[in-house]
C-alpha cells in the first residue's frame, strides 16, 4: 500500500435517511436520520418501545420501511436482502435458537444458512466455539443451556462468517451479573475489527463498550454523539424520557 493512502477501516457503513416505520396507527420509528461509520462500536439506546428493535428489523430486511430508506454499504435490505444478509450477523435480545438441536448442530445449521460448506463450515464452527468459550457445551441440547450460554451461542451464530456488521440487540437483558460481565467481555473483544451495533437500555454497558451512541424516544432521535458527551451529563436518563441533549 502506498504511504499516502490510509487503510480503509474494517466493517460496514450504515445509513438511514428519513427512515419511518408504522404499525397501524402507531409510529414505531419516525424519520430517523443516522450514519454509523465503518469500524465503529455504536450504541443505540432507548427505553423499551423506543424503536430500537424496529430499526434492527429494518436493517436486516425483516421489516420494510413505511417511508425513507436504510442501507448497508449503499445496499438496501428492502431491494437486495441477500447482499445485505451477506454483510450482517445478528444476535437478538431473545436468542433465536432451535432448542431441539445440539450446540454444534445449531452452529453448523447457521453456518450452512450463511453459505458455508465442508471444511470452511467446520473451521468456522470450531473457531466460534473457541472464541465464545462454549466448546465444553458443544454436544448439549440448546434448550438445556442456561440463558447466559444461549446468549453466547446466539453471538457465536451471528459471528460465524465474521460479518462486517454485527448487530446485537439487548445482549445482557435477563442475565445475572456474572453472565452479564462475561457477555460484555466477549463484545469488548470484537471492537475495532468490524462495525458493531449494540442496542441496549443499559447506560453503563453503552459507556463501557461504545464509542458513539444515539438515543431514541418513541421512535424519534433525541441525541447522537460521543458516548461520553451524550451520556456524561447529570441526568442521562432524561434522554430516555425524550428530553433533548
Amino acid at each position, binding site marked *: 500500500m502506498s504511504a499516502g493512502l490510509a487503510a480503509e477501516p474494517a466493517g460496514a457503513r450504515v445509513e438511514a435517511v428519513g427512515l419511518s416505520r408504522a404499525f397501524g396507527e402507531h409510529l414505531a420509528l419516525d424519520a430517523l436520520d443516522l450514519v454509523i461509520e465503518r469500524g465503529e462500536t455504536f450504541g443505540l439506546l432507548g427505553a423499551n418501545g423506543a424503536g430500537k428493535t424496529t430499526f434492527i428489523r429494518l436493517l436486516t430486511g425483516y421489516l420494510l420501511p413505511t417511508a425513507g430508506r436504510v442501507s448497508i454499504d449503499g445496499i438496501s435490505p428492502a431491494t437486495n436482502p441477500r447482499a445485505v*444478509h451477506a454483510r450482517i450477523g445478528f444476535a437478538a435480545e431473545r436468542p433465536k435458537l432451535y432448542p431441539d438441536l445440539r450446540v454444534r448442530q445449531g452452529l453448523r445449521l447457521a453456518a450452512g444458512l450463511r453459505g458455508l460448506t465442508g471444511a470452511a463450515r467446520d473451521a468456522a464452527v470450531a473457531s466460534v466455539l473457541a472464541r465464545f468459550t462454549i466448546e465444553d457445551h458443544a454436544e448439549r441440547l440448546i434448550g438445556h443451556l442456561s440463558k447466559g450460554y444461549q446468549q453466547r451461542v446466539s453471538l457465536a451464530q451471528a459471528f460465524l462468517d465474521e460479518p462486517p456488521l454485527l448487530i446485537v440487540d439487548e445482549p445482557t437483558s435477563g442475565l445475572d451479573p456474572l453472565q452479564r460481565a462475561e457477555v460484555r467481555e466477549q463484545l469488548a473483544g470484537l471492537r475495532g475489527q468490524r462495525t458493531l451495533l449494540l442496542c441496549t437500555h443499559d447506560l453503563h454497558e453503552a459507556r463501557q463498550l461504545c464509542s458513539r451512541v444515539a438515543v431514541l424516544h418513541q421512535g424519534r432521535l433525541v441525541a447522537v454523539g460521543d458516548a461520553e458527551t451524550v451520556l456524561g451529563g447529570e441526568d442521562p436518563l432524561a434522554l430516555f424520557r425524550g428530553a433533548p441533549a
Partner: protein
Amino acid sequence: MSGPRGQQARAAVLAPLWALMRKEATVLFASPIAYFVLTMVALITSISFFEHLRLYNHQLFLFASSSMGGFESDTIPDYINLRDTVFLPVMEQLGLLILLPIPLVTMRVFAEERSLGTDELLLASRLSPGQIVLAKFAVTYGFILLMMTISFIYPASAVLSGGLGLQHLAAVYLGLVMLAIGIASIGLVCSAFTGSQIIAAVSTVGVTFILYDFHWTFEFVSEGTAGVLDAISMHPHFGRFSEGLVGFANVSYFVTLAVISGALVRFSLDLRRVGG
C-alpha cells in the same frame, strides 16, 4: 456457469437450502411426534386391513361351506373379491384416516419458527423466502411419502398375492399419496399464518374437512354451483385414482393445490415484512 466459480455459485445457493432441509428433518425426528405418527399410521392401516381381510375370509367361508357346493361350483359371487372387499375399502378408509396424523406433522413447520422467533433468523440468512418454502415443503412431502409407504405395505402384499395388478396398485397408491400431499399442503398454509401449533392443527382439520367433499351440498345448490364445488372437492379426484384411473385433471388438481399452498405460504412471509 462452469468451472470453480460456477461451482462456488451453485454451492452458495444450494448450501443454505440443504442446511435448512437437514435441520427440518433433524427437528422432525428429534420430536416424538414423527414416531407417533408413523406408528399410528402403521397401526391403523394394519387394523383396517386385517379387519377387511377377516370379513372377506368370512364371506368366502360362508359361501364355500354353504349348501351351494363350495369353491369349485362357481357359486362365489363376483362382488366378493380382494379388490372390492379388501383393497378399495381400506384405501377409502385410509383417505379419511390420514386426515388425523398429517396435521400433527405440518402444525409445527412454520408456526414453531414464528413462536421461537427463528423465522427472523431464516429470513436474515442467505435463503430467499421462496427457498425457505421449497425446503420446508420438500421435507414435509418426503415425510408424507415415508408415511404412505408404511401404510401401503399390507395392502400391497395382499394385492400382489391376490393378482389385482400392479397398474391398479400404482394408481391407487398415487391417489392416496396425492391426497396426503394435498392435506399436507393445506396444513402448511395453516401453519404459516399462525404462531400457535394447536390453531394450525385444528384449522387444518377444519379446512380439509370442508374441502374434502361437497357432495352433501348438491341438493341445496344449482347444477352449475354443484359442478364447481365438485371440481374443487378433494374426494372426487381421489376417487378416480381408486378406480385405477390416473387422469391428468386429477393429478393437476393436487399439483395445483400444492402450488397454490406454496404461493400462500410465500405470501405469508412477505406479509410479515409489511405488516410486522
